């Protein structure tokens, strides 16, 4: 049982990265996102002033990296990103879920019907009753959990391949939604419910700063506590300066994001319509920023919960163990069948959450809501480094994957790329991302 693997002398650049203990893959994904953002920034700038041959002017004139566009990108990404976090667990355990878009449609149909018809008509709650949105959301989450759990049961206990079960689910749930609503658009939706849609519900400048500062403090304290815990067990820790630099970067990123969200100002006529909501005494001269949308907060909460599940709980450990070696997991006493049910039920709940955001953003449940979302969600997870062979994947990766996909699409729309070319590019990027990931794994020696 020898341990003689000679380590090649690390290069200087690599040693800085390893001192900081930064995940190089995370860095790569953020790098890709930054490149895409810069490219679109300059492209949009070039389109604005085509006769000036000055890259710096293009950069400063670009419209991609404006508060308005970053705000829009964030709220457009949320629905797919929420579902993609669940897809990570599905793919990690070597399954696939093709039914997420259809499941989203069924849950939004249930929620649409609940709030506009069932509760007001059958139960006699008048429209606008304060309980309506919450009962609606509960009904949606329950629907998602039940359908997801049932699909998980067929996959886990009846051993029908996930591909088949969810391919069937894709056809079934899309049309169950159609049947429930007779193919009609359901709306308008409840005012409170619509707060989850993005621009309809934001924290405003003051509370955004409060949340941002709390988050900054929490992550700083969290990193320091983790360090102290390591020291207590006498594990090696990174040098203090590296820890400090990491905390500084994290805090700057959080506060920077808040600053951008706050910098997107509410149009004057919107403020004038309801100036008290934006914290003004009078309408004249009142300016306000949107701040962080509730839907983005929801995504952050989902991301934190899912990351904790993945890294800190037995459930998460079993999910990854099962993905790495299903036989070993079963021999270790893990109930892999029940685990499958749990995972698919979780995806169902996340579809319902994604559905809340998607329908609240539109203001309606429509018959084609969530169409092709299954492919966007799978692509987001895969671009984010989730391996279809199982056992490997991260929650943050899936979210960045969703962000990259959305950036490409809205960036191309901004510069006027025709729709078919947009999809061609996205298709190429998907394949390219997986190829890069395979090369990275080869080079870094990981499997």
């Amino acid at each position: 049982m020898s341990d003689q693997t000679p380590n090649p002398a690390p290069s200087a650049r690599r040693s800085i990265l390893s001192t900081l203990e930064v995940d190089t893959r995370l860095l790569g994904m953020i790098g890709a996102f930054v490149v895409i953002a810069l490219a679109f920034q300059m492209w949009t700038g070039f389109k604005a002033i085509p006769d000036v041959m000055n890259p710096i002017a293009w950069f400063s004139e670009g419209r991609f990296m404006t508060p308005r566009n970053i705000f829009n990108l964030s709220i457009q990404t949320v629905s797919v990103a929420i579902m993609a976090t669940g897809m990570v667990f599905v793919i990690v355990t070597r399954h696939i879920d093709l039914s997420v878009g259809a499941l989203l449609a069924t849950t939004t149909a249930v929620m649409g019907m609940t709030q506009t018809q069932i509760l007001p008509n059958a139960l006699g709650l008048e429209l606008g009753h304060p309980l309506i949105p919450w009962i609606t959301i509960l009904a949606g989450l329950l629907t998602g959990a039940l359908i997801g759990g049932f699909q998980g049961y067929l996959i886990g206990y009846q051993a029908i391949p996930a591909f088949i079960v969810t391919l069937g689910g894709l056809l079934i749930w899309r049309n169950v939604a159609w049947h429930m609503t007779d193919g009609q658009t359901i709306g308008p939706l409840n005012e409170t419910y619509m707060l989850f849609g993005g621009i309809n519900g934001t924290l405003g400048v003051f509370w955004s700063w409060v949340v941002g500062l709390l988050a900054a403090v929490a992550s700083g304290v969290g990193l320091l506590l983790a360090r102290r815990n390591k020291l207590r067990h006498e594990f090696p820790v990174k040098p203090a300066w590296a820890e400090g630099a990491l905390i500084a970067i994290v805090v700057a990123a959080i506060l920077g994001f808040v600053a951008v969200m706050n910098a997107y100002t509410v149009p004057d006529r919107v403020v004038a319509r309801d100036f008290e909501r934006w914290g003004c005494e009078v309408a004249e001269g009142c300016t306000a920023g949107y701040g962080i949308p509730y839907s983005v907060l929801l995504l952050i909460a989902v991301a934190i919960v899912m990351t904790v599940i993945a890294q800190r709980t037995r459930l998460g450990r079993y999910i990854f163990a099962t993905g790495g070696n299903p036989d070993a997991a079963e021999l270790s006493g893990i109930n892999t069948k029940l685990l499958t049910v749990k995972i698919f039920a979780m995806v169902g709940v996340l579809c319902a959450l994604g559905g809340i955001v998607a329908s609240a953003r539109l203001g309606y449940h429509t018959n084609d809501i969530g169409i092709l979302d299954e492919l966007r969600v799978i692509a987001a997870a895969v671009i984010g480094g989730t391996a279809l062979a199982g056992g490997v994947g991260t929650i943050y990766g899936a979210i960045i994957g969703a962000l990259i996909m959305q950036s490409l699409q809205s960036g191309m729309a901004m510069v006027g790329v025709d729709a078919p070319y947009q999809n061609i590019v996205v298709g190429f990027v998907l394949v390219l991302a997986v190829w890069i990931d395979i090369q990275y794994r080869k080079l870094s020696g990981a499997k």
Partner: protein
Amino acid sequence: MTTPLVQMKDVCISFGGVKAVDHVSIDLYPGEVVGLLGHNGAGKSTLIKILSGAYKMDSGEIWIDGKKANIHSPRDSRDHNIETIYQTLALADNLDAASNLFLGRELTTPLGFVDDDRQEAETRKIMARLNPNFKKLKEPVSGLSGGQRQSVAIARAVYFKAKILIMDEPTAALGVHETQMVADLIQELKAQGLGIFLISHDTREMMELCDRVSVMKNGQMIGTERVEDVTEDDILSMIILGKNPKRDAA
């Protein structure tokens, strides 16, 4: 006479009409190593997988420590302090050594979260004892050598204080030096009073390590002999011909 640690009585299991294990009985005493020999498909691994809970027997009884035991799952088997080291090294390749060591029995914080730091500390401790060269605690075990992976599997048995250890070809994937380390470890565990079932194809190794050897062929038990009573040739003819020449002569 001491109570046997394990008694498997008249155990049968069939897979689609094929009797993989056919009315087999075997026992194991504390501080004893019993070797299971036979061709591929003789039923050794199947028999042992019944004891470790991976398969459910069709009929027969298992007695542990003089008490009848119901083993229906790997978890039941672990509850009886039975640990198994599989031929295929049942490790989750994508997880690190500590996660594998504690898989299915994670240490948790008071809030119920997996306590990775404590697990790592415990792993460091036990590895320092079993395999002092073991340093790659943070890496997925896919990056480890066969011997290192095997020591993770063995550490699992030692850490959870197994009383009964099942080793299914523990040295099949190992080099000479590493094989010797496993052999030393078997002696050490035996001295601590563990009972060990050892499966191997290597008759010579078995003669060295075991107290008794049991030979199986076509799902049936040919016979069990003390190693000092037989020669390697006798064992081979039991494996190949399905009978012990000495016994038949007598």
